[in-house]
């Protein structure tokens, strides 16, 4: 049964990792604007419309 101690420790660490990732993303402002990025990704900016 002692393997369980290790497994529980590992699972908690993984879960903490995801919690940390969530907090990091909130802190970075990922949830401040949930609309603009979805539009921005569809807009090209490399294309030069050189009609002349």
């Amino acid at each position: 049964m002692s393997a369980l101690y290790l497994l529980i420790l590992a699972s908690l660490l993984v879960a903490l990792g995801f919690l940390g990732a969530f907090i990091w993303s909130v802190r970075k402002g990922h949830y401040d604007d949930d609309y603009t990025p979805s539009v921005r990704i569809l807009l090209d900016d490399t294309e030069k419309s050189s009609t002349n």
Partner: protein
Amino acid sequence: MTMSILTAPEAIPDTKHVCYHCGEDCRDEVLHADDHDFCCDGCVTVYSLLKESDLCQYYAIEAAQGISPDPTFYKGKYDHLDQPDVSGKMIEFTDGRLTTVYWYLPKMHCSSCIWLLEHLYRLNPAVRSSVVNFPEKKARITFNAGALRLSDLAALLTRIGYEPYLSMDDLSGKKAGKWNRTRLYKIGIAGFAFGNIMMLSFPEYFHLGQNTSDQNLRTLFGVLNLALSMPVLLYCAGDFYKSAWSALKGRYLNIDAPIALALSCVFLISIYQLATQTGPGYLDSFAGAVFFMLVGRYFQDKTYAGVSFDRDYKSYFPIAISVLNDGAETRKPITELRKNDRMLVRNEELIPADAVLQSAVAMIDYSFVSGESQAVERRKGDTIYAGGKQKGAAIELEVLREVSQSYLTQLWNNEAFTREKDDANKSLASRINRYFSLTVLGIAVITFAIWFWVNKNPETAFLAFTTTLLVACPCALLLSSTFTNGNLLSVFSRNRFYPKNAHSIERLAQIDAVVFDKTGTITLPDDAEIDFTGESLTREELMMIKTLVGQSSHPLSRLIAKHLTDIPASRRVLTGFSETSGKGMAAQWGARMVKIGSPGWVGAARDNAGHQQSSRVYVAVDDVVKGYFTIRSKYRPELPETLAALHQAGIRTYLLSGDRPTDRDLLAPLFGQHALLLFDQKPGQKLDFVRGLQSEGRHVLMVGDGLNDAGALRQSDVGLAVSDDINNFSPSCDAIVEGNQLSLLPGYIALARSGQRIIRQSFAISLIYNILGLSFAVTGHLSPVIAAILMPVSSITIVAFTTLASNAAARRHLKKLTNVIKRA
């Protein structure tokens, strides 16, 4: 020398042209540039600016969605931004070289806008980056302050159509809080704890490990669960404790008080069980309850970014005004305006302080203050109160009182404007809660007493007491109201009706009287009924009139120009235009002389009959009076339907207008027999009227639009501001609705009432779960596994029910009405 080349009707286009930049029909002349049609010089300017910087992809994203730049812009308009004390407050961050501003650009409306605003660096290389937050309609722009001044940046944005909205509010240094993030942290941590405690409790649920000798593992699980629940108790649930405490201090019982009590009891019994090794505790249910309640609150309190409810007069006022100093014009922040300063106020600009007019004449539009829609004429030496807008040529004024002493500011500081609505005890949930909590507490005490004294079993007595509080925790009640109201808020906003918060919805459900303000709410702001009386006009004469009125910024001229939609205008044929304020205008159309204006101006006999009813504009060609335009305000076409639907729902309607009683005969039948139609109402009278209705026990909804209604909006149970552009001005209110959606008002009220019903129904559903749980709890048999199943299942049932039911109600009430109105 002939004038024949100037009378050129053949040059008039007959086909419709659509502006390549803004997508509007070209009503006046059509300008050609680069194989495209444009409606005005402004659009051409923006187009060539974009073309120069190779930004024409703008038009490929959402076709012609451009904005015609503000024609009232003039060089130097933003000079005040470069003053250190102003710029210091505008700037979000600066290291001396790179500077960041976060500006509100209300004109942005589509994905083309996002694209263009994020490519500002191509228009000016000093801009390092620009990032748009579309829901808030804001852009964060980083630029090289050495190469680009703040005023130049504002001018650049204005030139491409996105004028930044800068008001005195920006100067007061208020920065938006980050409360949203704190809520997300709390939800994240509670969810994390909830999931992990449940996982670690699995062995307990299935009685695993009870027969083995490995007791250490059980202890470890218990310790870990306790450790995981600590942040939930101390951080995530903190708001419930704080709110409960402040309610108790104020000597009333809000819904958070019994929740805080239940949470504390559950936590204490869990610690007791873990410490005495008599059981695993109920920490999973504890963390789950906090998690679900936080999600519900987040859902309910989600605000609409970009819609502001609590604007005061400061956000209406500009930051700076032009001041003349020995003839030289400088921009001065309006807080620094002093008595005897000379202001220069241009067309469409707001007069920020009480002042004496120095120019010969001015046309002042007070609609924002008094509700009177027609501009009034003022002459040299007259006192002009703050809040008026100049229409027409620039005027000079001498400041009489500083901004903080002015009439408008004084009005705003009136006690009625600062009154807060009492929300604490009015919500349905807290009303039900009062009985519910007492009942639950009663059951818990009786259970405790029976176990303790009758059955002589103190251990079970404490267990039964706390588990009763746990299963019957009013969190189901809280979830019912938060999820119903949260869902209704998003349904409403999809229908372009924006209640301020859940309390506004609950008050909306109780409305039984609706008071309308006339200006702008039931009339169409930019439209009027216009008839021409007199000789029938030829197409050429109509063209003359259209072209002539197109030159003037007088509101009546603009209405006539709009009325003559199908008639093209041609500025090239017009010569010698002159306008005399308060009288009319005159010009040469080829060889012919056209005059438009008052009867005296064109030489017509004054006709007083029916003059109170409407405004008249006379036309004369070559000194022959052709006739006159009659201009009457136009009511929203759906008005009769809307009023009928309100009457059907048992709601009384009233009209309070700051205007003259021009249309009493027309409106009286619509408003019904009991209706009271009052005209010439001052802001204070409106407020008193609403207060009078309330003292009769009525729940009043006030529909208004201007600052003149602000007091009545505050006093009413629900103050509804009508705004044709939600991002524009609106006074402090409980809800904002777009003008063309006002016809749905009966539907909104019906939906709010349904919402209250749904809360009661879902509460009844949760009672079934409660009774089931209580039957376990009072017998002392509520095991952690039953609690852990009951709690999420009941929560999910309630969330699903409220969401489905409120969506169904929205379909029923709003769709039906939309169809009726469309058919009408």
